[in-house]
């Protein structure tokens, strides 16, 4: 597996895992960076032969950005009231959709 959500994958447990410490969306490397993508794929292929047992994690040797703000921004809770309202609205939509199903 190649992925960026380390805790989810490791709690689940997989045979071999290449962890890419990037924002979710580009686990195989940055857009348009063919060399990085190629390294990532080859790292994963090498791990197929080199892993001694299950739950073998290797971390890809790349940094997304010197600015680590992306780590805080994902699912950041900035406006509690707006989020609560968003949740209420979604539940109402889902309830309405369920009511339409015969």
């Amino acid at each position, binding site marked *: 597996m*190649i992925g960026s959500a*380390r805790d989810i994958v490791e709690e689940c447990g997989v045979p071999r895992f290449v962890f890419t410490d990037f*924002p979710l969306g580009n686990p195989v*490397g940055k857009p348009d960076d063919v060399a990085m993508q*190629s390294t990532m794929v080859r790292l994963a292929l090498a791990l197929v032969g080199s892993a001694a*047992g299950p739950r073998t994690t290797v971390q890809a040797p790349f940094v997304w950005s010197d600015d680590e703000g992306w780590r805080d921004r994902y699912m950041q*809770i900035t406006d509690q009231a707006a989020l609560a309202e968003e*949740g209420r609205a979604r539940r109402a939509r889902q309830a309405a959709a369920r009511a339409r199903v015969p």
Partner: protein
Amino acid sequence: MKPRSHRSFISYIDRSRAYYAAQGYEEPYRWATHDDAPFARLAQPLEECRVGVVTTAYFPAGHEPEGVPTGPEKQPYAAPTALASGCVHTDDLSWAKEETHTDDLDTYLPVHRLAEAEADGLIGSISPRFYGIPTRYSHRRSSTEDAPEVARWMHEDQVDVAILVPL
């Protein structure tokens, strides 16, 4: 080197639990956890292996190629690798849309990079099909219905090595 008081990588389990709690979902999602993980050693050299990729991306409704299930609910699929480019989409999945984009297919479905690995003789071949598995809330359906179906397709295609790449 930057000294830190916390682990550097994001805990998506913690982050999403707090976020959905703020939206009023009181019962947190229960993530899949297993005491054991499967493992199989490579039975032949990598340069003789066929490699298949599994993605969580999907074809947009109305643009599914022949053989890919249509309908309101996503289903597992197998589609020609040649059709991946420009066809699969990721809009409805959760990823860091404020930080990056998925316009470059190989950042999450590396069919061109694997074709190059084949051309370089690193692997035997890339599978003629790639495989899609829907993100579901139901662990049961993922493990007892979707995964076996994808495994069957891979068996048909004589895939030796599967690379799973969730968005």
